[in-house]
């Protein structure tokens, strides 16, 4: 379960666990996190937690709410985000249970309203089918309560990795669902550290032209006649035949249907055109 660490001038005041669906922050005593300071509005901000995701929303406070130095209206909290309210800082630390491997968490699971009883078992035996038990149906519609028109939170990528920390004290409502999935699909790592792959045309009307292989896939040849594709992969550059009766020829040897890894200064012949593959430092 995620935690909030409230501090003032670098001194930690208190820690809070985000155990409820709604956690309110404000000056008045009925707030879950009360900050008794005049710069803080009576009802200043609210954090909505749905399973493992938490959303911060400013409730129209007088002096505003900042996250990592930026004023926000609504924000999808990421691990280590720092919320500023007046002079107070609140650090958001999302915790991932470390007892289970990432793999266990990423399995697709079903959510359904009833069956809360299944929850504790799920915790212990992650390989079992996990039938989540959060009343999603209730949780999701709660969302529009927040102004739907609020500008989408724009956050930078980068500090989004969720580090596994101490296992939580058995969360009640089984979101073993906690899938600490690293951020969005990473782009394929720049192929082969050796450098940027390039193609230089050696013959025909375009002789001398250079073509950088910057995209994950680059097609070469004449559609309908002969086409090959060069795929940029973490391991390097690979050429594969796509269509046509003839297969591409690399260094004088005709390829088969399999992908062929290119080496620096390989000469490719395709649809009657010669070209050279090379790596640019």
């Amino acid at each position: 379960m995620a935690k909030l660490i409230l501090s003032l001038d670098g001194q930690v005041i208190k820690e809070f666990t985000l155990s409820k669906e709604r956690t309110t922050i404000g000056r008045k005593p009925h707030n879950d996190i009360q900050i008794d300071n005049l710069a803080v509005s009576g009802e200043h901000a609210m954090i909505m937690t749905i399973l493992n995701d938490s959303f911060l929303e400013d409730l129209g406070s007088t002096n505003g709410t900042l996250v990592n130095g930026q004023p926000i209206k609504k924000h999808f909290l990421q691990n280590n985000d720092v919320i500023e309210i007046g002079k107070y800082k609140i650090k958001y630390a999302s915790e991932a249970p470390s007892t289970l491997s990432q793999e266990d968490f990423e399995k697709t699971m079903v959510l359904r309203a009833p069956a809360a009883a299944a929850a504790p078992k799920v915790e212990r035996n992650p390989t079992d089918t996990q039938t989540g038990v959060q009343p999603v149906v209730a949780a999701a519609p709660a969302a529009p309560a927040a102004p739907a028109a609020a500008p989408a939170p724009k956050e930078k990528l980068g500090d989004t990795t969720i580090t596994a920390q101490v296992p939580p004290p058995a969360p009640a409502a089984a979101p073993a669902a906690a899938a600490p999935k690293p951020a969005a699909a990473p782009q394929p790592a720049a192929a082969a550290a050796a450098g940027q792959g390039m193609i230089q045309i050696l013959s025909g009307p375009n002789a001398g032209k250079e073509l950088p292989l910057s995209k994950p896939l680059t097609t070469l040849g004449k559609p309908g006649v002969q086409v090959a594709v060069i795929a940029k992969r973490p391991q390097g550059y690979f050429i594969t035949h796509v269509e046509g009766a003839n297969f591409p020829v690399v260094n004088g040897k005709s390829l088969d249907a399999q992908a062929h890894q290119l080496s620096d200064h390989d000469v490719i012949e395709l649809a009657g055109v010669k070209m050279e593959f090379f790596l640019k430092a």
Partner: protein
Amino acid sequence: MSLSSALQMVKATHTGMVRSHNEDSITTDPEIGLAVLADGMGGYNAGEVASGIATALISSETREALIRNAPHHVDKTTGAPIATRLLRDIIAKANTSIYQSANSQPQYAGMGTTLVVTLLCDNQITIAHIGDSRCYRFRGGKLEQVTRDHSLLQEQIDSGLLTKEAARRSQNKNLVTRALGIEPQVEAEIHTHPVQSGDLFLLCSDGLNDMVEDGDIEMTLEALAANPQLAAEQLVQMANDNGGRDNVSVILIKVRKDFPADDGWMTKFLGWFK
């Protein structure tokens, strides 16, 4: 009438780089215009069992049902093509079958599967889905998602809580709100769309769309449209190159030409008297 001359169907599936086994199951039957993809879930090998039951049962039942029914005819009571009712009934059967095995055999308890099924006939495609397995259409150089996931994330996007970009970083990616075989009854979402010659339909498990961005999928289909088998393998490879954190499965259906239904003179003749 066989549709295999009009429809080219290719498939590729891979365990991925992290999982120990492949719980996805896929099958294609170009003759009758059917493609089925299921992404199973459940402990040990129960996920495979659930997805396996789904694909096997749906393909055999559909084949049989098509002998007696013309899927493109309009169902008089609902106004939808017969295909809709056929798929609904067959999917309900698959649901019952998985649900019962799950309840009768302890090792399969709680197993289930997501599902996407397409049935093509008479220049139309009927798509049924449950959960977060998807169908995309690639037409005129543009990739469009045709199905809408039954997932927590999709609900959050719909309600305005998350943007599509923020959704990619959500920790709740893998929670589906509907699955086959988990409860005694399930409702498949079924729609019929017109098909054009040259269309390319992509069915995939979340192992693909979680690892490869739509833009890269689009580019791959564009570049490799001439060779669907290579395109399917390339997509799987890209998912694996990006980490391959889940099983990844892909079915591509290429519409080579129009495929109007041929009812034969007898049917047409009888149609006069209806």
